[in-house]
């Protein structure tokens, strides 16, 4: 009985050492669950072209950044998907851990759809309406009060008499960050000194936090057609027989209105590459090139088909230049940490709060 124990101990110790010298030839992607459907389809295509198929861990944008910025070396991920761009605090974390060479690839657009069941009446909303329905504090008759609204027609009399109930994603979700930046802040009516309260959700049970599981939210929307929820356009596209989106400022989300940013809740999607891993783990550059290629994100591309919206031509050619030359083109992680993000003035950012 003693000998097997000793060999076992040896086995455990040797696997520990094996783990130390663990080399990887398979790309490891983490990050946004909104980017997950696109990233995994792209990963599969990369696998079919001869590389090992990358793995994708849907941790949410925030969780992905934490893992991505934890350090350089094969035990850390190579790519992170994000449904918003890197925050200054995340850039600072990367710098602190020696991840100084990061390439930002803004490869497509997505629209956040404010959706409800197909059986419900059509809604034509504005961002102001949505904010009024969801915020903790609103302005009534010039005074700031706790949100008194309980049905949509109290906000605007031409809206249907539906109770207000909105299912939202958890704080780790990039979609929630983008929604807060692009809807809650844009629709906000609070005075400047209360600006921080714009993104506070009401806590009287009308805004309900769900997990990062779109299927669950869709199911809840179908159970009660007065409920609303938000998610990325690809989910709506696949479930058009059950769900529909409310129009926002008179525009419905479609591939075209998202690509042109006519739809006000459109936002860019990103992947971040760890430049120090390129050449160590094979396929990273090819993955990014494929993701931004005409075949993927062109008019009939395989990512366009599942819901990603193309970028305007001058931007996508700029992005392709980045993936070809691996030159970050002015974006450096220092500039993000110093809040000087080059996209800040590009006007394409949904949140308007790049590297806050």
């Amino acid at each position, binding site marked *: 009985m003693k000998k097997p124990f000793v060999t076992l101990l040896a086995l455990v110790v040797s696997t520990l050492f094996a783990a130390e010298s663990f080399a990887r030839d398979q790309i490891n992607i983490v990050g946004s669950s909104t980017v997950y459907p696109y990233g995994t389809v792209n990963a*599969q295509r990369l696998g079919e072209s001869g590389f090992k198929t990358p793995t994708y861990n849907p941790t949410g944008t925030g969780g992905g950044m934490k893992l991505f910025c934890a350090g350089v070396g094969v*035990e850390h991920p190579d790519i992170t998907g994000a449904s918003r761009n890197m925050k200054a605090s995340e850039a600072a974390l990367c710098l602190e851990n020696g991840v100084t060479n990061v390439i930002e690839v803004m490869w497509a657009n997505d629209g956040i759809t404010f959706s409800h069941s197909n059986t419900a009446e059509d809604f034509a909303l504005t961002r102001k309406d949505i904010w009024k329905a969801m915020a903790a504090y609103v302005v009534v008759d010039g005074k700031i009060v706790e949100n008194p609204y309980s049905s949509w027609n109290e906000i605007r009399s031409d809206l249907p008499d539906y109770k207000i109930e909105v299912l939202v994603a958890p704080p780790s979700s990039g979609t929630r960050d983008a929604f807060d930046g692009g809807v809650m802040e844009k629709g906000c009516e609070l005075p400047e000194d209360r600006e921080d309260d714009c993104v506070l959700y009401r806590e009287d049970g009308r805004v309900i936090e769900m997990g990062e599981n779109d299927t669950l939210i869709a199911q809840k929307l179908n159970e009660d057609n007065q409920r609303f929820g938000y998610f990325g356009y690809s989910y709506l596209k696949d479930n058009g027989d059950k769900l529909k989106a409310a129009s926002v400022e008179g525009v419905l989300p479609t591939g075209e209105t998202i690509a042109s940013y006519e739809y006000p809740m459109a936002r860019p999607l990103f992947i971040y590459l760890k430049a120090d891993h390129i050449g160590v783990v094979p396929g990273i550059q090819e993955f990014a090139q494929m993701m931004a290629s005409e075949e993927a994100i062109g008019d009939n591309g395989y990512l366009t088909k599942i819901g990603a919206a193309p970028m305007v031509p001058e931007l996508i050619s700029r992005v392709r230049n980045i993936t070809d030359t691996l030159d970050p083109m002015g974006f450096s992680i220092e500039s993000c940490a110093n809040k000087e993000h080059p996209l800040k003035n590009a006007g394409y950012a949904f949140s308007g709060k790049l590297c806050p």
Partner: protein
Amino acid sequence: MSNIKKRLSAERRFKFYGQVGVFLSLLFVSLLIIKIFSTGSGAFFRTTIETDIFFDPELMNVDQNSSDKEISRASFEKLADGVIDFNFKNLSEDEFIKIREMYTRRFDYQLRDYFLKNKEVINNTVTLEISASSDLDQIVKGNYPRNVPESQRKINDYQLTILDELTSKEKIGSTFNFWFFTNGDSRDPETAGILGAIMGSLYALMICLVFSFPIGLFASVYLEEFTKPGKMTDLIEVNINNLAAVPSIVFGLLGLGMLIGVFNMPFQVPLVGGLTLGFMTLPTIIIACRSSLRAVPPSIRHGALALGATKVQTTFHHVVPLALPGTLTGTIIGMAQALGETAPLLMVGMVAFVMEIPGGPLDPATGLPSQIYLWSESAERGFIEKTSAGIMLLLLFLIVMNLAAILIRRKVEVKW
């Protein structure tokens, strides 16, 4: 008299409550099973389209003299496109794309696999059952409604007309979906399989067993046979019982913090997942081992000691072998519990899109429950039946393991 009536009616009431309880729990279990089976059974079959295929040498880069290696590397996409032109004449470009979308995206792989086995078909026409795309498959299975407006469907009106045409010609068929058992995960629901997740769970359980069984056994032998009862052993006992009740996510955090954080072990591999599950099952195994060691009557120990055996000899020649069936039962139940756990896997990254089937405990992998979770999150309709089918498989494994535990207990355990 009234007293006995009252007491008897109390007994009847109690019996009735018990029956209601049993009936309700059976009802819920059977509802769950019916729901899972009715949605999941579709995953074991996939829709096929009977298609005439002319192996046109002009559309292929290989011929009958090519080696297997050349064929496996060659592209059959041109031939797949040619097949559609061959079956549906005079298509516009748009119609061509729509019809191509009715077939699985991996159409060319199916052609290649067939050609590898039948090289003589070149220049000949054969009829094959080509797999349909998942969207079409879901329409045929009735999981996606046909009567909603075209803009809300993934299959458009033109494709529906073609489908009806094919159906009237009896070209739409159904075949057993082997891919579900032989493939890893895929983003095309029709080719997605569960083998990768099964292997991932298997490696993790192996590591878990190798780690926790010996440690658990030796720890319980030491605690039962070699220590004197006292404050220290009481303290250890309380702690072990406490650990057994700790939520599994805490063990996941331990795995993340210690194995990945301190020992720098890689993310999302079964080695780490298995060790984390091992931490979790260790208390369960220790408790089971201790109670089966305690069940061995002291007369065995006294007899051995009286004949001059040392304490170690007594323990390992007599007590442990007699207690082994009980310890095995406890271990199997612990393993079954570990198989169904998702939270620890989540923390160490074993919830991921992994297409390649892991070849060992150091390859990235996902576990069976986490695969089910990932599929349940997917937007594509085809993954709903895969989710239920995955649950069916998981239940099957759990039933087999628990059954094995019961059988071992019945057959091998010694009654004193």
